[in-house]
């Protein structure tokens, strides 16, 4: 089933971390397997924020020497960062397998990202100037607490509660997906994509990488491909209605935008609230009510509808 939610404040920062946590907690019944957040702070052009995992949560119980392996992987990652002239300005780890780096880097970030993902068990969850992408097994409260998300301030964010139907219960199959290699672009999705393998082969032939067999990852790769070809977010969302088969509603966030697209059958829900100050959307109104208890007007976007909002 899965639940998705999005939130964007117009022209100001807010408590996006706690707001998204409240929204996703209200959607827990739509998917208890994993929870993910892509939240956007004020962009810092000088620094890159890179979040990555060097193992899956389940790997931690796979052997006595797992921590040694993780330490070795982290050492290689940091060595490769240095080889790409990226200096580490800050480093945090919320869990033994998930790390956050603040990097100073000039050069080809895609080449650096590919080099780092070549390290065994390593996947870059996000890379950008504003995006912080956090996802793990458990509900919104567990993930938010483990990763210290509640104090995060920013302009916008998207999130996802997952009920695994197409692939495994693990971090690589959890949402949001970063639109590798595009800085600050993330995607969450609710639905099933029926031409997944066809489109995946097309994307792989173009050189795009897939880290999971989750059909939702296709939307991130597809968006990245469109952006690479000069499309705007609105163009990409519009094209997806024609080119992606299946039933879907998905949200895409960039550094300063949040967009939504709904398939031609309008089979997956989304409730939308708009005001002068903020826009909130979720699979169910109960998620919007979690942050806006007062009486508000909400609407359901129609079939083939796409929308894009600026922060």
């Amino acid at each position, binding site marked *: 089933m899965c639940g998705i939610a999005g939130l964007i404040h117009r022209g100001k920062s807010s408590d996006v971390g706690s707001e998204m946590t409240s929204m996703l907690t209200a959607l827990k019944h739509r998917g208890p397997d994993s929870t993910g957040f892509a939240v956007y702070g004020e962009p810092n052009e000088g620094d890159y924020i890179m979040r990555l995992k060097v193992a899956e949560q389940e790997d931690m119980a796979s052997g006595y020497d797992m921590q040694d392996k993780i330490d070795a992987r982290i050492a290689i990652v940091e060595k490769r960062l240095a080889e790409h002239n990226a200096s580490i300005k800050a480093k945090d780890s919320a869990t033994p397998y998930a790390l956050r780096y603040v990097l100073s880097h000039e050069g080809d970030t895609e080449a650096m990202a590919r080099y780092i993902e070549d390290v065994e068990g390593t996947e870059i969850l996000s890379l950008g100037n504003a995006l912080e992408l956090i996802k793990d097994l458990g509900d919104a409260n567990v993930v938010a607490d483990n990763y210290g998300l509640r104090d995060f301030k920013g302009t916008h964010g998207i999130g996802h509660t997952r009920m695994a139907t197409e692939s495994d219960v693990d971090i690589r199959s959890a949402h949001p997906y970063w639109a590798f290699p595009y800085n600050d672009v993330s995607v969450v999705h609710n639905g099933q994509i029926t031409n997944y393998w066809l489109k995946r082969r097309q994307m792989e032939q173009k050189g795009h990488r897939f880290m999971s067999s989750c059909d939702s990852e296709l939307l991130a790769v597809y968006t990245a491909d469109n952006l690479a070809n000069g499309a705007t977010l609105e163009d990409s969302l519009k094209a997806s209605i024609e080119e992606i088969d299946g039933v879907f509603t998905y949200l895409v966030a960039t550094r300063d935008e949040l967009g939504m697209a709904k398939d*031609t*059958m309008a089979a997956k829900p989304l409730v939308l609230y708009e005001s002068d100050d903020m826009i909130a959307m979720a699979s169910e*109104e*109960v998620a919007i009510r979690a942050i806006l208890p007062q*009486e508000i007007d909400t609407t*359901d976007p129609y*079939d083939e509808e796409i929308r894009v909002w600026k922060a």
Partner: protein
Amino acid sequence: MESMSVMAEDMGYDPRAGETRDAKEGTTQEDRARDLGMMSEQLKNRSMEVFFEVGEDENYTYPWTDQVDFNKRTELDCEGKPTTQVNKDIRALMAEGYGTIVLKNPRGMHSVGVGILNKLNLIVEGSIGYFGVGLIDGPNVRIQGRVGWSCGENMMAGTVVIEKNAGSTFGAAMRGGDLVCKGSVGSRTGIDQKGGTIIVGGDTGAFSGFMMQRGRMVVCGNAGKNLGDSMYDGTIYVGGEIRDLGVDAVPAELTDLDKAWLTRKLTQYDLMPEKGIDHFTKIIAGKMLWNYDNLEPNEKKLIL
């Protein structure tokens, strides 16, 4: 082996010997279905719609229902309560004779007010989520906010009036009563509608009236694509633009009877357009699908 023989004896034919029931009994599946009352006459462009008498008492009550007094009013705060508790509380209040219940702070709660098989004035001060007031038979419900997906699903009798917007599958499989949304609704409104009246003050989305079987739907605004797709019967009235019609949905003449009915219903719910109802388009089933199974393959292609 003995049991197989007994089975063949019971059946009247032996499948192991290549016998078929049709050959043995000299009957066809169609004959047997007719004998069992499973098939009626061939349907030939004739409406199956049942028109109720205006004065007919639709407030059928069940023997076990509580005697409630509409003048006995109370409030029920939903804050912090799970849906099941709210619905139990509604029943407990009805058992105490309360005929008017005001729900406070529903805040998008799902499945509120389902399965009320009694007379009741239920007033919801706020918005509710999915599957609100489904399977009801008798209450009058007024919702001051909006409703999520599948409001009034399988509703049998009563009146539901929503002041704001509604989600998709509004009135799915509805059988009777009036279901009114003064705002706009999502997609697949009245899917599988079997009776009753759905009225939408604003627009409706794609596939509205999909596989509609009976009843009436009124949309004062625009209708999305595939309106009335595969509808068997029933009537859809649209005041705005129709993006396109679904398979076997066809326009029909708006008669004086239609106009009188529309005027009465829209006036009743304060949704009468300023320019009247003469501009409404009436959509009915073309009935080509009624005999679909009897068609030759090429004829089926012509319909679809």
